[in-house]
């Protein structure tokens, strides 16, 4: 029984060539990049026979590797940022990245509010900054091929340190602006010191019509008694293949909330790898996905309860129109010692059209005997009785549908406590519904 060896795809060959071209110019420790790329090359792009990518076959979806974008000039960066709209109504410190490079001119690094420190990553990598030791907080994320690619190619990003209570919102703005397709690999490390609190926003935009390939990683180490709220908006261009990872390690007695809203990209996969590393911590991870046409969106989530007495809540809502495909893969891991764990995971999907597909895989892996873990998954269409009720009261069909979709998705957005952010997200949702009608 001979081992079947897969042929290298054009995208894999392209990535190997890209690595050869850029490896000498990328800043910092070349060895860790080489290691990551070696791991990646061993297995190649993940395909449907790789369990974690069963529903998102990157080998098939990524036809060609786009060239990595160079550093934009000051004017180019300025022009790119002028065109951005995502979450623009929300008052926040702007931390922009254009084509994967931190736009230094746009941020007054010396004049940041108290408790906020920002270090540009490219320089830090080049100079061997001490915070670099904190990169890759979730060790098992290194096994992930998407993460490996980011580690191989990460050219720039920032490291952010938060101490004390920071009231001002921080907005990480990722923009890809280029008429032709480019690839980016941005890395952001967020260190939240013990007792600190902060609200982080992320928005991801790219120009329509080009097959951009952003691969972003945000890593976060939140200490004990921290309170972090994290809202991420995917408003990528209509042809983009967007890969992203949130790697998270949370200490004791902390609260963490993250919401990912997917409204863009042709193909997207957002991975959350979370480790609850201290007792009595509460984590909530939500997702809201709106798909139409031929879009494909994957939400993959692994939460490890590495300490006892923690609580995690996961709520993912997906609405599918046209011939779109939604994917939810969630996994809660409870090792032997994590007694009194309370984990609940829910994925609900709404199919609005006959051509849509939803794939759900809510998984539990439990080794402790005194825990409460639950997962649920539903999939269906709009409730006919409720539709009838609304239409009997004079609402046209489309409006009744919109109202119900809004209520359905709203459940996951509800948890955003900042009113401006909440309203901005509701706007996105309404915009999606209007475009549909």
């Amino acid at each position, binding site marked *: 029984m001979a081992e079947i060896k897969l042929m290298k795809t054009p995208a894999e060959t392209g990535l190997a060539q890209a690595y050869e071209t850029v490896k000498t110019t990328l800043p910092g420790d070349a060895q860790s990049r080489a290691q990551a790329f070696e791991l990646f090359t061993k297995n190649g792009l993940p395909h449907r026979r790789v369990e974690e990518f069963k529903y998102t076959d990157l080998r098939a979806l990524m036809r060609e590797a786009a060239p990595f974008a160079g550093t934009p000039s000051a004017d180019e960066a300025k022009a790119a940022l002028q065109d951005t709209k995502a979450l623009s109504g929300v008052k926040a410190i702007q931390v922009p990245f254009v084509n994967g490079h931190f736009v230094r001119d746009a941020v007054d690094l010396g004049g940041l509010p108290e408790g906020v420190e920002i270090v540009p990553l490219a320089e830090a990598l080049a100079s061997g900054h001490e915070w670099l030791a904190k990169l890759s907080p979730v060790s098992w994320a290194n096994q992930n091929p998407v993460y490996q690619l980011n580690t191989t190619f990460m050219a720039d990003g920032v490291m952010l340190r938060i101490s004390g209570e920071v009231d001002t919102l921080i907005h990480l703005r990722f923009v890809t602006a280029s008429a032709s397709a480019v690839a980016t690999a941005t890395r952001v490390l967020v260190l939240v010191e013990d007792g600190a609190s902060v609200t982080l926003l992320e928005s991801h935009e790219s120009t329509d019509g080009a097959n951009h390939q952003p691969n972003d990683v945000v890593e976060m180490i939140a200490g004990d008694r921290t309170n972090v709220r994290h809202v991420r908006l995917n408003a990528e261009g209509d042809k983009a293949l967007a890969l992203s990872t949130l790697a998270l390690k949370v200490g004791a007695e902390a609260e963490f909330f993250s919401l990912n809203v997917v409204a863009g990209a042709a193909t997207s996969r957002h991975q959350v790898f979370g480790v609850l590393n201290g007792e009595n911590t509460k984590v909530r991870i939500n997702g809201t996905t709106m798909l139409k046409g031929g879009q494909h969106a994957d939400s993959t989530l692994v939460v490890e309860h590495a300490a006892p007495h923690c609580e995690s809540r996961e709520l993912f809502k997906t609405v599918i129109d046209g011939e779109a495909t939604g994917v939810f893969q969630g996994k809660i891991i409870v090792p032997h010692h994590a007694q009194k764990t309370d984990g609940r995971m829910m994925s609900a999907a709404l199919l609005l059209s006959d051509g849509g597909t939803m794939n759900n895989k809510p998984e539990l892996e439990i080794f402790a005997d005194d825990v409460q873990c639950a997962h649920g998954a539903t999939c*269906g269409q709009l409730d006919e009785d409720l539709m009838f009720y609304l239409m009997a009261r004079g609402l046209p069909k489309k409006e009744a549908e919109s109202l119900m979709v809004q209520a359905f998705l709203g459940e996951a957005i509800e948890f955003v406590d900042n009113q401006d952010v909440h309203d901005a997200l509701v706007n996105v949702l309404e915009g999606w519904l209007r475009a549909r009608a």
Partner: protein
Amino acid sequence: MPAVQETIDQVRSIDVDQYKYGFETVVEMEKAPKGLSEDVIRFISAKKGEPEWMLQWRLDAYKRWLTMQEPDWARVSYDKIDYNDIYYYAAPKKNQAPKSLDEVDPEILRTYEKLGIPLREQEILAGVEPERRVAVDAVFDSVSVATTFKAELAKAGVIFMPISEAIREYPDLVRQYLGTVVPVTDNFFATLNSAVFTDGSFVYIPPGVRCPMELSTYFRINEKNTGQFERTLIIADKGSYVSYLEGCTAPKRDENQLHAAVVELIALDDAEIKYSTVQNWYPGDAEGRGGIYNFVTKRGDCRGRNSVITWTQVETGSAITWKYPSCILRGDNSRGEFYSIAVSNGMQQVDSGTKMIHLGKNTTSRIISKGIAAGKSENTYRGLVSAHRKATGARNFTNCDSLLIGNECGAHTVPYIESKNATAVFEHEATTSKISEDQMFYCQQRGLSDEEATALIVNGFVKDVLQQLPMEFAVEAQKLISISLEGSVG
């Protein structure tokens, strides 16, 4: 909440070192040469007096199997199996086509007596007539040693016989259906089975007939170093009904033995098949030595409109279980059900579940699975529910709970839910919070403690699962009835 004491005691009483069926029967056996080759397949085929097409079918499967790789996606681990270190055929010497029970080796009869399996029709009739009678096909290693009530069943037009006999007597019927639910190329173990299967049962229920009694097959692995590769084919023709039960045990041995079976069910228009399993293969000892590798492919095809297939399983045995009894819901309005209680102890590894594939309109399915892991065992539920584009109005409800006893074991849930049809409604849940507060309040108001009330309500629920089993064989399963699932995790 941790498990309640009652549950712990119940699970303990069926722990691996309490295995009651581990004795060995000493009879003279005839075996095929060790290992797997075309010659061995020809040997098996010749022993069974098979027609040429059957041999060809086997050889094609074997050729295919040589190109396949053993699956490794299940959450089980074991040393590589040496497929050339197994006897693929072993039959008692004195069993050369016995005409009646009197010709069967008395040692074998005693074995079945000890196992409590009735092989003599008159014995059953002599006493007080039980509510329902059961026809038994007893399979000992590679051959069927006796099939009871054949004549009486034949009067109703029901064919119930070892599959090797059916291939000779009803070749057209077998050929029409064999391999149509589980294709020869389906998976590594099914393909292996297609090449080397030895015995198993064949059932055909003619149109409109309600099978007059329970049918059952009792599988016994006895001989050392042998694998058991049985093949069961059940066809319920239009408007018919049959309830079928299989039981299985094996002697205690230090080495692992392979059991790779294929079961195919076909339900035509308005037909119903109930298939129940009490799986009690030798699970190995407390250190994980020995035990059966139970790698089984079971699939039912609801081919006709309004057809129903129900799988019920009580799984307590086997060192490793790899089994996913499934339903293909092809006919409009057809229904598939899966009820399972899987208890793992010692070093057992279970990776089991079901697949419900909705193809037809208004098809419904229900999955109720309870996994209980104790000792150092691993218990995984793996299930797929899928609705294809044309499965308008498909419905599924899934509920899978698991319970851990001690913190050296693991309980895992891996459900796959795939929907390609907007009108399909799928619900999956894995909690025990389904006990409503109203019910609790009602019980407590009548003086029951929290625990008693929970036990009562949960037991009422579990009983639903066990009542799917035919009465006669529910005894073994009854032990599990009182297992409270209090303290379940999802």
